[in-house]
């Protein structure tokens, strides 16, 4: 394929050799390094392809071998250009085209955002617009590092951003924080703070539950395994008492609590689904509209205006591009409106059960992704007249606790009564147990 293209660009001739010693002609060509291809014997003569430069060297060979050469066909770009040499507009157009491609390639014509799950492309594009990053801006004005910093600054849950330019395309790849963002952010934040100011951070229960297991890395455990805790109870305290020889509290060491606490809790589940649904019965008519836009100029053909009360609209959009990365400012749209009559229909019991079960299974899967283990499940489906419900509770083992700044305990007041209570614990646990 490539060699053919090269042959076409360089140009070649199809010639016929006739005479007495045609084989000698072939050998002479070979000897002089003239490349021949597509050799074919045709009734006592040979037909073959030869390059233009090769053809120019043929004269002495023809004289020596006494053969006769006829040119059958001239192919390739040089001959094509020569044939149309008088068409000045054609050449002007070709040059203009090359110039246009060159000129267009200096701008961004497509912004591609990948990796966003909780935010739509449009939201991010709107944000970029406020930072004057938009389609049609000059490539030289794009500052990828600036874009990365801006996005990181604006959105806390985006933990990684990469911006790069490929062709006429600005590619922004992001990674969102898939863990529960609030807790980890708080912890990180809190840890940073303690390094500087050393203010204690507790872990408090974010749900009423029974504690199943607790691994404390930092802080003092305030509850026991098997204990029932309520929402808001302190599970791990960030203030570890320091005792003197008499077992009295003389002060508190401040820590940022860090622990894995698993609790058994009950989650209520309720989901409902209407017994009826609306089915669209389409009319045979259909309105179509096609649009084409060049930069900001937009041409539309047809229309989707209609007098029907209900209609469904479908849309499709595309952008002109060369290969993968060379986008051009030419877009096309097609929109289609199909009117319909809404008809109310009734789900049968099996369908309702299927819908509710599917939703419940998805809910369970989401829970499992968050590290929640389901132990018991008594969710049942109740079919009503207009509406059906899936109701019940789930017993689960789940990670419990969220970070919260401690309420500081005062040493002198606590000294007398607290010293006895916490003395044993404080001796054995210096807040860094493993």
């Amino acid at each position, binding site marked *: 394929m490539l060699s053919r293209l090269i042959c076409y660009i360089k140009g070649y001739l199809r010639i016929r050799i006739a005479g007495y010693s*045609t*084989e000698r002609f*072939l*050998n002479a*060509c*070979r*000897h002089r*390094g003239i*490349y*021949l*291809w*597509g*050799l*074919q*014997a045709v009734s006592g003569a*040979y037909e*073959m392809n030869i390059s233009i430069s090769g053809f120019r060297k043929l004269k002495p060979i023809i004289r020596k071998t006494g053969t006769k050469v006829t040119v059958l066909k001239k192919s390739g770009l040089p001959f094509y250009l020569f044939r149309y040499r008088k068409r000045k507009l054609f050449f002007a157009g070709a040059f203009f085209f090359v110039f246009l491609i060159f000129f267009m390639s200096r701008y961004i014509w497509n912004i591609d955002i990948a990796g966003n799950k909780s935010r739509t492309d449009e939201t991010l594009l709107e944000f970029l617009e406020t930072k004057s990053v938009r389609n049609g801006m000059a490539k030289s004005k794009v500052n990828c590092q600036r874009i990365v910093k801006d996005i990181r600054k604006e959105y806390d849950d985006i933990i990684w951003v990469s911006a790069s330019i490929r062709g006429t395309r600005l590619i922004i790849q992001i990674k969102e924080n898939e863990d529960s963002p609030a807790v980890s952010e708080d912890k990180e934040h809190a840890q940073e703070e303690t390094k500087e100011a050393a203010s204690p951070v507790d872990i408090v229960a974010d749900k009423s539950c029974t504690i199943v297991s607790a691994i404390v890395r930092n802080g003092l455990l305030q509850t026991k395994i098997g204990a029932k805790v309520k929402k808001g109870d302190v599970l791990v305290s960030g203030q570890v008492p320091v005792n003197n020889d008499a077992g009295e509290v003389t002060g508190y060491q401040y820590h940022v609590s860090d622990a894995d606490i698993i609790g058994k809790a009950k989650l209520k589940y309720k989901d409902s689904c209407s017994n009826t649904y609306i089915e669209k019965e389409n009319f045979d008519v259909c309105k179509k509209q096609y649009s084409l836009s060049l930069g900001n100029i937009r041409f539309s053909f047809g229309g989707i205006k209609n007098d029907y009360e209900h209609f469904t609209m479908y849309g499709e959009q595309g952008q002109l591009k060369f290969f993968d990365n060379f986008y051009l400012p030419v877009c096309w749209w097609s929109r289609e409106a199909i009117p319909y009559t809404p008809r109310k229909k009734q789900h049968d019991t099996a369908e309702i059960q299927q819908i509710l079960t599917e939703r419940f299974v998805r809910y369970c899967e989401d829970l499992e992704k968050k590290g929640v283990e389901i132990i018991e499940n008594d969710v049942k489906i109740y079919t009503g007249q207009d509406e059906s419900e899936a109701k019940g509770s789930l017993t689960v083992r789940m990670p419990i606790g969220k970070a919260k700044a401690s309420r500081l305990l005062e040493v002198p007041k606590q000294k007398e009564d607290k010293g006895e209570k916490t003395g044993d614990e404080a001796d054995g646990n210096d807040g860094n147990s493993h």
Partner: protein
Amino acid sequence: MKTKRQVSAREEHSLKNRLSELSELPKDVVLGIPMLTMVGQMELNIENYRGIIEYTDCLIRIHTKDGQIRICGKNLKVDYYTNDEMKVTGHIISIEYVGLSVPD
């Protein structure tokens, strides 16, 4: 009766042959003998040849260092013809070595 030249050529041949066997160099390089590569019955690559003696669409005779190679077939075409290599396409029926000396 063998001419002196033929005898000496064969000696040289055998000496070179031994040399190539000892040094494990490819024989087509050391001896300059033709190398033919076939793909099915439709493609034939020939290296180390001296020239074409005859070419029609059913017979190609090729001159090599030690003699001739006759290729018989139908619709024989030469795809390319360069100093080092030529490629014959078409329906190849037979390849025959003519006039090559047979070692004793």
